[in-house]
């Protein structure tokens, strides 16, 4: 017997971690989908790149304040001391996200949402490939689990195509190949972005620490793209100034998105990227629910209804198939092998890596929040309040009942999954 072989995680604990990871994946879908709702309040003709930049500013504020609230900056500092090289990976992942997000804007403009969305949703298929090749995911999983994950992802891919076709409103602009290239490139970037995610979580970094540094790469890259797109800092600032009364809604969109993304990170950690990415891709279903039920989109589009129903059923069936194909103890041992390889390669304390993969706390017990944590939270809140004070509520017809229903459903998922995550892992 190999004396360095990792101790298998107790079967009951592994099952709990898998259930929590799946719940996080479904919650991520709900909140990532809900992030589109605040952006509907923006009806002015602002550049899409500027919209994306302001959402990233909201994301940045949330990604510094929520981790400070949940764990404190001292815990983030502990993580960095254990594995400082992962800061580079996090920044790299943030850059990948920002470029992908910008590419989707151009893809929608050139080929419309109907074709673009399924193309970049192919990221889940790429995630399965990277998970298998680099991180031992689905190794020794058996044909039934392979069929569940791969089949589920393919069914979701088909469902995404149907939903996108039904919800498409944009007309192609005549640059078809350019748009296809942009959408496919976005899918490749987003699918590859999960390599740093998985790397970090196998090594032992806490998702709340990882996203903190991720946001630096994201904001820097998005800022550079926006400055380049607008032709300099001065024109960019001028455009932001003209749109100041709607910037609050974009910040809110970014904040809601971060809540979803945090759950996505925990899903990637506890069920792997091959299962976590497709589950978070159910965000398309939630986005459509917000559009149809709250904002009255597709009203009178009777011919699209069968497509919406068929697409939704495909998405749901695919997600259920993936959820039922949880990792076995044998597959989890292969994850531990990959984690051990990472630890050896980068000289990480094996206890740190092992504890993180089991969802347990590492390092010193968490203390009280420091002045820095409160300063970050107060500063982020002040920015939101400041923008809220100059915000204008646009005249928009919304279905109040559906709005309340979706908010309650999203909060219930947040509360349920958040509580389970806290009970089982203590946000580790």
């Amino acid at each position: 017997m190999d004396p360095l072989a990792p101790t298998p995680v107790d079967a009951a604990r592994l099952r709990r971690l898998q259930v929590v990871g799946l719940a996080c994946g479904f919650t991520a879908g709900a909140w990532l989908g809900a992030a589109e709702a605040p952006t509907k309040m923006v009806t002015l003709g602002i550049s899409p790149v500027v919209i994306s930049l302001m959402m990233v500013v909201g994301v940045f504020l949330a990604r510094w304040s929520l981790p400070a609230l949940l764990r404190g900056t001292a815990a983030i500092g502990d993580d960095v001391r254990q594995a400082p090289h992962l800061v580079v990976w996090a920044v790299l992942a943030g850059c990948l996200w920002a470029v992908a997000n910008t590419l989707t804007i151009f893809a929608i403009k050139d080929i419309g949402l109907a074709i673009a969305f399924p193309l970049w949703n192919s990221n889940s298929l790429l995630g399965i490939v990277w998970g298998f090749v680099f991180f031992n995911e689905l190794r020794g999983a058996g044909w039934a689990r392979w069929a569940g994950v791969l089949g589920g992802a393919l069914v979701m891919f088909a469902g995404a195509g149907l939903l996108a076709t039904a919800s498409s409103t944009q007309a192609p602009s005549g640059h078809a190949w350019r748009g296809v290239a942009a959408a496919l490139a976005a899918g490749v970037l987003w699918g590859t972005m999960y390599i740093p995610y998985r790397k970090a979580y196998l090594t032992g970094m806490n998702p709340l620490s990882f996203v903190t540094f991720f946001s630096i790469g994201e904001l820097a890259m998005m800022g550079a793209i926006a400055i380049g797109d607008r032709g300099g800092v001065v024109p960019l600032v001028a455009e932001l100034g003209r749109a100041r009364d709607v910037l609050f809604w974009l910040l809110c969109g970014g904040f809601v998105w971060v809540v979803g993304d945090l759950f996505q990170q925990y899903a990637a950690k506890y069920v792997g990227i091959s299962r976590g990415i497709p589950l978070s891709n159910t965000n398309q279903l939630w986005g459509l629910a917000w559009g149809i039920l709250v904002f009255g989109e597709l009203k009178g589009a009777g011919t699209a209804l069968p497509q919406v129903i068929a697409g939704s059923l495909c998405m749901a069936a695919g997600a259920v198939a993936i959820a039922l194909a949880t990792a076995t103890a044998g597959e989890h041992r292969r994850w531990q092998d990959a984690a051990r390889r990472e630890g050896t390669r980068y000289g990480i304390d094996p206890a740190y890596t092992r504890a993180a993969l089991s969802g347990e706390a590492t390092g010193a017990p968490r203390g009280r929040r420091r002045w820095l944590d409160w300063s970050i939270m107060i500063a982020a809140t002040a920015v939101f309040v400041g923008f809220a004070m100059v915000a204008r509520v646009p005249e928009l017809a919304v279905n109040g009942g559906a709005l309340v229903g979706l908010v309650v459903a999203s909060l219930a998922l947040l509360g349920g999954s958040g509580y389970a995550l806290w009970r089982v892992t203590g946000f580790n």
Partner: protein
Amino acid sequence: MGLAAQRLAAMLRDPQFWVPVAVLVGGLLVLQWIR
């Protein structure tokens, strides 16, 4: 060689590092092309 330098060297030798870097460069080139 200090631990930080060892980790940096390990990262530069790690093929998993170069995959996202190459994809990022490719993405920026596509973005430049379509703009």
